C-alpha cells in the first residue's frame, strides 16, 4: 500500500530515505524522520489498539507523550520484546516490527470487545463491588482471571540484552523544553556565561515553532529555532540534548533525565547504550515544557479518527501527513482554526464546529476569508463508525446549551478536537510548587517556587509568542547574572503572530434526550462521564478518591489529556469551583522510564563490588567452591573428586583436628588503633578490662550496643604501648569502624585515639591443628615458637623468608592455632610457603564450612548467634562483663528483661538417633505433634556434622536453657518437613576445658 495520506512538499522528513516496517503482520513504508504513528497515518491506519476495559477500537489521539491509546508491542532483532511503547514516540527504523496490544485474536476482531456490549455491568468500582464474594473465590477464580485480563502488552521473558548508562552532570541552568521560551532563556543564560544544559524530549528542537506560522526577527519560527540551536551547540558552556526527557524534579534541584541513545540508529554498535540516565544537579531550573491540548467530551468521542487538533497539525506540518481527507474541526477556542487553515492550504475542505457564538480573532477571520465552513454554537453530539470513524452527528445548541435544537449527520473521516490548552506543570509541581488555578485559561499554573525552579512560556500559561520570548530572555539573563555575575544582555527579537480570542468555558457536550452515548474522559482506562458521575453519587468527593475509584488518570499516560476534564466534571457536578476540588498529585516520572535506565550498569555481578583476597586465584586453581560473605568471596570448601559439601567439609575439618589445616582469613575486619588513650577507649568499647593488657598480648572482646544487645566480637592485640590491632567479624567490619568513629568524634572527642581500617592492607592465614606449631617453626626459623615462646593469645613480629609478618596465637577452631598476617601483596607468597612446608605434615586448606563445623562443635559463637537479639549472658559470655568499669551498653543490662534468670541461653543439641541433621532455623518445642501454634522454646542457630564424635551437633538459643540441659525436646522444621527428637546438652561439645588451645 502506498502512502496515500502523505503530502508532497510539507514536513521535515527525509523523502529520499524510504523505510519498510511491519505493523500487525502487514508491511508498510514510511520515511526517515517518521514516528511509527506518522508512518501509519500516512498509510491511512488509524486503528492501533483496543481500550483496556471495554476493548473498544482506538486510534491516535496525540502526537507525543500525551498519547493515551497508541501503545504497541515492539519486537527487536535478535532480542526480546518491549510492551507499551508509545507509537507517537517510536522512531521509524528499517525493519521495525510492532503489534497492537490488548486484543485477541486481532485488533480488528477482538474477542474481549464483548465487554463493550456488557458495559452496563462494568461501572466504576466494578472490581471492588463484584469480587468481594464469595471470599473463597478470590485466589482460585477471580484473581487468575483478572491477572490475565490486566496489563497491556506482554512482558519480555529474556534478560534485557541492552546496556544502559548513568551520567552525572552539574550545571548553572538546566532548561527543560526547547520551544520559544526555552530557546531564548538558554541563549540568554549561555551568552551571559552560565553553564547551560538544554533538554528536548522530542527529536526536533523548536516546540510550537515547528508548526506555528510566526516570524521572529525577520525569520520564520523554525528557521530561528534552527539558528539558535546551532549557535548553542557551538558554545563550549552549553550541552544541547534532544531525545532527552527530564522526567523528575527531586530535592535540592536534582533533575533526572532519560536520553534515548540507540533505538533510532539503524546499525548501532554492540557498545551503544540504549538509554542514558542523567542525574543533573542544577543551580537553577527553567521549566519551559509547554502545554498539552485538552480534548472535548462528546458521545462516542473515542473512535479511531478522532484526534487532537494540534496533533493533526503536527502530523501535517512536521511529517507531511493528513490524518483525514474529510475533516471536522471541533473546538471551543481559536487555536484549532490553525488546523483548519492548514487543511485548507493543503487542498482539503474542513468543516469547523465551534461551541461559541462567534469569533473575531485574526485567526478566525483568516478562516472565514478562506471560505472555510464554520458552524457556530454547535457541537459534535455523537459519532459513528466501528473500526474507523465515518460520520458525526452535529447539533445546534438550545439557548442554555443543555440540549440541541437540531441534529444533522455529516460524513467525515476524522474529527480534530480542541478544548484549549493545559500547561505542563508536572515538573513545577514535583519541585514542591503548590499550583494555583488560573480562571482565564481554566487550568492550573505554578505559584510560589519552593526550590530554584522557574516556569516560563506556555507551561505557566503565557500562550503568546511575544510573552514567551520576552520571558525567556529575561529569565535567562536574570538567573545567569545571579550565578556568573556577568552583565551580557541579549536583545529580545521582535516577533509576529496571529491573535487568538477567548475560549468557551464548555467542555462536556450534553446528551440528547433518551440517548446514553458513552462520553470518554480517560481513553486508556475507559473512564466515561457516567463513571465519574456515579463515583460522586456514591460519595467519593475527594478528587484523590474519585481518581482511585474510577481509575481516572491512572493509566500509563497518567492522565495527561484527561485530568483537567475529570476535575471540571467533578466541579460541575458538585457545583464547586475547580480550586476547591483541587488536583491530584503529580509524581515523577513524567513519562514511563525503563527499569533498565534506572538500574544502569548495576546488573548481575556489577550490582555491588566483589571483594577477593590476594590468595583468590590459588583457591580457584585448587577447586574451591566459593560462598558470598558480605561482599567477599570466600572458599566454602575445596572439592576433591565427586565430593559433596558435607563430605568435603568433614574431610577438611577432620584434617584440622588430626594434622593441620590452613584457612584464608583475609576478610576478617582489621582496624588499626593508635593514640595515647587507646587502652582507655577499648576499655569503654569492650565489656571486659583492657587497661592492663601487656604489650605483645591479645585478648578476646565483646562489644555491645547502647541497648545492651551484643554488637560484635573479636580479638584485639597490643602491638605497642599506644598501638592496637583490632579484628572484627567479616560481616560487621564496616559497622564497627563507624561505631568507633562515632564515639571518638561525637561522644568522647577528648580521647587521643585514631582508628583506620586495615582490612585490605593485611592478608591473613590461620594455621590450625596439632601440627601447627611444627609448621610455624619451619616458617619462622628465627623465633622461639614453643608454648613459652608464643603463649596462648601471644603476639610476635618476625619475618617470613624476608617478608615482615605478624603472628597471633589465636584459635577459632579450638585447636592449637596461629594466625599469620603479611602485607596483602605478599599474601600469595605466604600461602604458597605454608602449603609447601606443610606438605609433610599433611596440610590441607579448609573453607568456611569446615571453619563453621570446628567452631560449632567447640561452642564458639558467631554471626548466627550474635543476631542482634541476644545479650552477653544469653551466649554464656557474662564472665566477660566487667563489674569494675562502665562501658557502652552496660546500663541497659540492668533493665528488667535483661536480669530475668530464665532468659534464653546458648545450648548444644544432638538428635536422639545421632543420625539426623537438624535444619538450621528449626524451632525447639516440648511436643513435636502439638497443633499449631506450637509454643516455641528456642531456635537452632547453627548445625554441623561433628567430626570429633561423628554425629550431628547443633547450637541453639533456648529459653531457660541453663536449666534444660539433659531434657528431651523436639526440633521441628515445617519448611523442611522435619520433626526430630533431640537432647539438650552443653554448648561446649569438644574440649570443654579449652586445653588444646593452650597446649
Amino acid at each position: 500500500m502506498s502512502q496515500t495520506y502523505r503530502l508532497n512538499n510539507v514536513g521535515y522528513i527525509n523523502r529520499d530515505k524510504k523505510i519498510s516496517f511491519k505493523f500487525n503482520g502487514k508491511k508498510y513504508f514510511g520515511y526517515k524522520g517518521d514516528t511509527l504513528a506518522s508512518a501509519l497515518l500516512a498509510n491511512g491506519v488509524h486503528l492501533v489498539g483496543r481500550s483496556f476495559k471495554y476493548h473498544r477500537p482506538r486510534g491516535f489521539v496525540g502526537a507525543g507523550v500525551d498519547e493515551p491509546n497508541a501503545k504497541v508491542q515492539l519486537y527487536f532483532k535478535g532480542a526480546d520484546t518491549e510492551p507499551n511503547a508509545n507509537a507517537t514516540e517510536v522512531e521509524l527504523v528499517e525493519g521495525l516490527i510492532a503489534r497492537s496490544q490488548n486484543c485477541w485474536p486481532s485488533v480488528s476482531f477482538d474477542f474481549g470487545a464483548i465487554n463493550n456490549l456488557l458495559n452496563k455491568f462494568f461501572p466504576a468500582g466494578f472490581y471492588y463491588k463484584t469480587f468481594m464474594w464469595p471470599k473463597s473465590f478470590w485466589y482460585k477464580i477471580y484473581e487468575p482471571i483478572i491477572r490475565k485480563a490486566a496489563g497491556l502488552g506482554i512482558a519480555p521473558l529474556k534478560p534485557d540484552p541492552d546496556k544502559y548508562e548513568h551520567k552525572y552532570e552539574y550545571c548553572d541552568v538546566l532548561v527543560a523544553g526547547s520551544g520559544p521560551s526555552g530557546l531564548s532563556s538558554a541563549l540568554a543564560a549561555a551568552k551571559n556565561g552560565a553553564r547551560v544544559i538544554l533538554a528536548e524530549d522530542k527529536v526536533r528542537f523548536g516546540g510550537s515553532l515547528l508548526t506555528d506560522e510566526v516570524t521572529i526577527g525577520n525569520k520564520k519560527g523554525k528557521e530561528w529555532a534552527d539558528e539558535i540551536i546551532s549557535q548553542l551547540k557551538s558554545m563550549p558552556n552549553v550541552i544541547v540534548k534532544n531525545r532527552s526527557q527530564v522526567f523528575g524534579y527531586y530535592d535540592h534541584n536534582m533533575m533526572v533525565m532519560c536520553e534515548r541513545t540507540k533505538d533510532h540508529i539503524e546499525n548501532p554498535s554492540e557498545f551503544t547504550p540504549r538509554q542514558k540516565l542523567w542525574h543533573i544537579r542544577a543551580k537553577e531550573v527553567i521549566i519551559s515544557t509547554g502545554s498539552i491540548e485538552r480534548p472535548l467530551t462528546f458521545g462516542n468521542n473515542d473512535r479511531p479518527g478522532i484526534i487532537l487538533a494540534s496533533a493533526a497539525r503536527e502530523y501535517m506540518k512536521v511529517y507531511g501527513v493528513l490524518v483525514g481527507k474529510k475533516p471536522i474541526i471541533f473546538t471551543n477556542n481559536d487555536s484549532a482554526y490553525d488546523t483548519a487553515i492548514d487543511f485548507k492550504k493543503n487542498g482539503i475542505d474542513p468543516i469547523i464546529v465551534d461551541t461559541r457564538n462567534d469569533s473575531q480573532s485574526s485567526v478566525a477571520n483568516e478562516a472565514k476569508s478562506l471560505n472555510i465552513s464554520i458552524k457556530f454554537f454547535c457541537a459534535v453530539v455523537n459519532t459513528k463508525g466501528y473500526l474507523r470513524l465515518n460520520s458525526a452527528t452535529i447539533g445546534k445548541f438550545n439557548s442554555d446549551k443543555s440540549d440541541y435544537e437540531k441534529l444533522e449527520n455529516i460524513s467525515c473521516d476524522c474529527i480534530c478536537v480542541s478544548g484549549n490548552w493545559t500547561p505542563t506543570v508536572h515538573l513545577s509541581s514535583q519541585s514542591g510548587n503548590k499550583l494555583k488555578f488560573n480562571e482565564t485559561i481554566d487550568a492550573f499554573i505554578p505559584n510560589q517556587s519552593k526550590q530554584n525552579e522557574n516556569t516560563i512560556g506556555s507551561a505557566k500559561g503565557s500562550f503568546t509568542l511575544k510573552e514567551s520570548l520576552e520571558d525567556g530572555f529575561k529569565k535567562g539573563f536574570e538567573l545567569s547574572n545571579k550565578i556568573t555575575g556577568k552583565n551580557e544582555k541579549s536583545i529580545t527579537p521582535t516577533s509576529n503572530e496571529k491573535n487568538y480570542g477567548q475560549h468557551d468555558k464548555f467542555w462536556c457536550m450534553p446528551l440528547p434526550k433518551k440517548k446514553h452515548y458513552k462520553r470518554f474522559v480517560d481513553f486508556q482506562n475507559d473512564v466515561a462521564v457516567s463513571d465519574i458521575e456515579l463515583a460522586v453519587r456514591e460519595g467519593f468527593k475527594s478528587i484523590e478518591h474519585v481518581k482511585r475509584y474510577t481509575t481516572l488518570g491512572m493509566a500509563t499516560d497518567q492522565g495527561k489529556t484527561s485530568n483537567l476534564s475529570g476535575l471540571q466534571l467533578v466541579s460541575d457536578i458538585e457545583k464547586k469551583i475547580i480550586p476547591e476540588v483541587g488536583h491530584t498529585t503529580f509524581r515523577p516520572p513524567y513519562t514511563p522510564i525503563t527499569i533498565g535506565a534506572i538500574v544502569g550498569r548495576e546488573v548481575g555481578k556489577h550490582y555491588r563490588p566483589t571483594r577477593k583476597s590476594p590468595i583468590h586465584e590459588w583457591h580457584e586453581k585448587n577447586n574451591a567452591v566459593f560462598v558470598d560473605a558480605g561482599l567477599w568471596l570466600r572458599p566454602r570448601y575445596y572439592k576433591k573428586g565427586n565430593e559433596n559439601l558435607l563430605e568435603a567439609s568433614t574431610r577438611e575439618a577432620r584434617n584440622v583436628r588430626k594434622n593441620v589445616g590452613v584457612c584464608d582469613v583475609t576478610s576478617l575486619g582489621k582496624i588499626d588503633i593508635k593514640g595515647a588513650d587507646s587502652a582507655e577507649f577499648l576499655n569503654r568499647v569492650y565489656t571486659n578490662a583492657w587497661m592492663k593488657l601487656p604489650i605483645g598480648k591479645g585478648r578476646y572482646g565483646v562489644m555491645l550496643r547502647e541497648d545492651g544487645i551484643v554488637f560484635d566480637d573479636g580479638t584485639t592485640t597490643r602491638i605497642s604501648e599506644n598501638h592496637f590491632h583490632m579484628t572484627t567479624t567479616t560481616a560487621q567490619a564496616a559497622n564497627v569502624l563507624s561505631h568507633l568513629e562515632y564515639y571518638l568524634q561525637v561522644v568522647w572527642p577528648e580521647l587521643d585515639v585514631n582508628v583506620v581500617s586495615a582490612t585490605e592492607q593485611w592478608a591473613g592465614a590461620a594455621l590450625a591443628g596439632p601440627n601447627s606449631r611444627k609448621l610455624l617453626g619451619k616458617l619462622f626459623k628465627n623465633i622461639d615458637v614453643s608454648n613459652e615462646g608464643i603463649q596462648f593469645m601471644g603476639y610476635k613480629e618476625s619475618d617470613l623468608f624476608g617478608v615482615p609478618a605478624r603472628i597471633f596465637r589465636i584459635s577459632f577452631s579450638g585447636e592449637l592455632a596461629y594466625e599469620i598476617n603479611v602485607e596483602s601483596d605478599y599474601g600469595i607468597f605466604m600461602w604458597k610457603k605454608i602449603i609447601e612446608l606443610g606438605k609433610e605434615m599433611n596440610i590441607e586448606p579448609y573453607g568456611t564450612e569446615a571453619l563453621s563445623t570446628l567452631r560449632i562443635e567447640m561452642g564458639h559463637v558467631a554471626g548466627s548467634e550474635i543476631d542482634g537479639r541476644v545479650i552477653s549472658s544469653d551466649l554464656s559470655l557474662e564472665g566477660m562483663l566487667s563489674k569494675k568499669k562502665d562501658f557502652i551498653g552496660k546500663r541497659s543490662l540492668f533493665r528488667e528483661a535483661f536480669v530475668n534468670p530464665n532468659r534464653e541461653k546458648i545450648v548444644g543439641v544432638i538428635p536422639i538417633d545421632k543420625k539426623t541433621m537438624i535444619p538450621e532455623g528449626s524451632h525447639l518445642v516440648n511436643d513435636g505433634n502439638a497443633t499449631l501454634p506450637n509454643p516455641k522454646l528456642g531456635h537452632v542457630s547453627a548445625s554441623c556434622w561433628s567430626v570429633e564424635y561423628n554425629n550431628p551437633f547443633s547450637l541453639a538459643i533456648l529459653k531457660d536453657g541453663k536449666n534444660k540441659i539433659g531434657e528431651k525436646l523436639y526440633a521441628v522444621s515445617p519448611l523442611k518437613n522435619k520433626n526430630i527428637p533431640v537432647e539438650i546438652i552443653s554448648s561446649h561439645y569438644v574440649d570443654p576445658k579449652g586445653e588444646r588451645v593452650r597446649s
Partner: protein
Amino acid sequence: MLEIKCPYCGKRSQNEFSYGGDAKIKRPELGKEISDKEWDNFVYYRDNPKGKHSELWHHISGCRQWFKVSRDTASHEIFKTAKLDEDL
C-alpha cells in the same frame, strides 16, 4: 537526593553520607548513676519534629567525619552544616 555540604569536603550528594540521628542527644557520662527513665530517654526516645531539626551525618564514603546538619524534615531544606565543635 539531597545535596549536603560536608564542613571538610564541600558539597556532595546524599549517597556519600549516612544519617546519624538527633544531634542534641547527649550520652550520659560514664559511671554516673542514672534512673531507668533517664537511660531509656537516652537509648530509645527521640523527638520527631516536622520542621527544623539538628542532626548528625557521617561522611561515610568521603572523609569519614561526623558533623552537624540543620535540616527541615518536611521540605529537606538544609539551613547550615557545622563541625562538631562549632555551633549550628
